[in-house]
C-alpha cells in the first residue's frame, strides 16, 4: 500500500474501529467537561465529523487514537470557553455506592469540586492520566505541549487537589 495515498485506507479503517470501540470513553470524557448529556453527545458527534474531515492529514494508523483525543479535548475546551458555565455539583449527583469506607462523601465532593475548578488544560491532564491511564508523553501529544510542561502542570494540579503523591505518578514513562 502506498503511503502517499490520503486518506490511507488503513488509517481510515483504524479510525472507524477506534471510534466505535472507544465511544463510551469519548462520551465520558466529553461529559466530564460539560456535565450535560446533550452537549456531550453533540461534542462527540462533531469531533467525529471533524476527524473524518481532517483524516487525510494523518499518515500513521497507530496515532489515530491520540489524534482523536486531541480533536475531542479541543472541542470540549472550546465548548467550556464558549459557555463558561460553572457546573454546581450537588451531593445527589454522586451515584449510590460511589463512596467507600476509606473516603468520606465530603472528602470526595471536595476533591471533585477542586478538580472542576482547575483550568481546563490542567483538568485534562489529570483526567487523562488518572481516569484514562494515558501515558504522559501521549498526553503531551493530546494537548500539544512538551513533556516537561505536562509534568509541571500535573504536579501543580495535584498540589491544588492536595492529593498525596505516592511516587506512582510517573510510572510507565
Amino acid at each position, binding site marked *: 500500500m502506498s503511503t502517499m*495515498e490520503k486518506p490511507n485506507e488503513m488509517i481510515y*479503517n483504524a479510525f472507524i474501529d477506534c471510534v466505535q470501540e472507544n465511544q463510551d470513553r469519548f462520551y465520558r470524557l466529553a461529559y466530564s467537561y460539560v456535565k450535560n448529556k446533550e452537549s456531550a*453527545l453533540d461534542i462527540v458527534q462533531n469531533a467525529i*465529523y471533524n476527524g*473524518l474531515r481532517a483524516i487525510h492529514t494523518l499518515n500513521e494508523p497507530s496515532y489515530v487514537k491520540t489524534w482523536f483525543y486531541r480533536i475531542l479535548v479541543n472541542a470540549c475546551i472550546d465548548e467550556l470557553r464558549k459557555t463558561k*458555565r460553572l457546573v454546581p455539583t450537588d451531593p445527589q449527583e454522586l451515584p449510590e455506592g460511589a*463512596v467507600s469506607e476509606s473516603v468520606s462523601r465530603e472528602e470526595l465532593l471536595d*476533591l*471533585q469540586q477542586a478538580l472542576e475548578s482547575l483550568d481546563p488544560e490542567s483538568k485534562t491532564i489529570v483526567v487523562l492520566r488518572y481516569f484514562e491511564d494515558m501515558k504522559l508523553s501521549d498526553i503531551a501529544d493530546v494537548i500539544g505541549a512538551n513533556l516537561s510542561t505536562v509534568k509541571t502542570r500535573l504536579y501543580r494540579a495535584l498540589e491544588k487537589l492536595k*492529593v498525596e503523591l505516592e511516587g506512582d505518578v510517573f510510572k510507565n514513562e
Partner: protein
Amino acid sequence: MNKMRELRRLYENTEIPPELSHIVNSALHQNENGILKNVKSEVRSENENQGELKMSVIKNEANGTGRASAGKGRRNLYRSLTAAAAALAVMVGAFGYGVSTNEAFADSVSGMPLLGTLARVFIGEQVDESDDIIHVEMKLPKVEGLTDKAVEERINTEIHDKMTAIVEDAKQRAAENKKAWLETGGTEDEYMLREVIVDYEVKSISNDVLSFVVSKTETSGSAYYEMYYYNIDLNTNKELTLKDMLGDDYIEIANKQISDEIAVRSKNPDNLYFDGSEGVEGFKTIAADQSFYVNDAGNPVVVFNKYEISPGYMGIQEFEITK
C-alpha cells in the same frame, strides 16, 4: 491515591446514553461516501479477500450513491468485527471476512430504527446574553417527528412561551433586586451577578414514549430549580399520566414505594428526609400533578424538587416506581 481511585470510579460510572451508538454510527456513516471518494482505487491487495474491499471502493467512486450497497456492507462489517473481535480489529482492519457474513449482518441491522426516523428532540432555540445584572443562557428543545403535527406544534409553542416568560420574569426580578442592593449601600463590585440557565434533557426515547424535561436553574448564591416534564405517548400523541402508567391504584402504588424507599435511603446517615420531627412535614402523598419522567426501562420516575421532601443539600429527589 485512594481518593483519586474513588473519583475515577465516579468518572467511570458516568451513564452512557443509549442513543450514543446511533449518533456515533450515523456520524461515521454520513461522511463515509465523501471520504471513500477520495481514496484512490489502486489500493493494493495484501491478501485475496481484500479484493472485495477494493471492489466496493471502486463502486463507490463510480456511482456517488454507493452508500446503499457497498458502503453499507463495509460499515456493517466493521460493526460485526468490532463486536466479535474488538482487539484484533484495529490493525488487521476489515480484511479476511467473506461476503456472506456481510449480508447476514446487513440483514440483521437493516430493521433497526435509525436516527431521524423516530420522534426526536433537538436544540430549537439558543439564547446567550449577559449584562451587568443577569446572565441568561437558554437552550430550548424542539420536538420533531410526532405523528400528530398539531400536538407537536402545541408542545413546541408552549415550551417557547413558558420559558421565555420565565426568563423575562427572572430578568425583572434581578433588576429590582440590583436596584434595591445599590440603594441600600451595596456596591457595583460586590453585586453578585444573577444567572439563569434554561436547559433540557431527554430522559428516554423509545418507539412508544418520548420523555424529556425542560429545567430552569436560577443562581444567586444558592441554586433554585424549576422542572417541566413532558412525557408523550407516541402512539396516541397524548401526554402520559401516572394513572396511564400504573393503573387506577397509582396513588397507593406510588406512595407505598416512595415511603419504602425513603426508609431505605434514610438508613444512610448522610441522607435526611423531613419527617415532621422538626415541624417540617415530610412526604405524605404524591400530588395531583406530580412531576415525573419515564426512564429507559419504561418506568415512571417521580421527582421532588429541592426542599420539597428533604433539606436543600439533598437536592432533587427521584423515585423509580415499578408496576
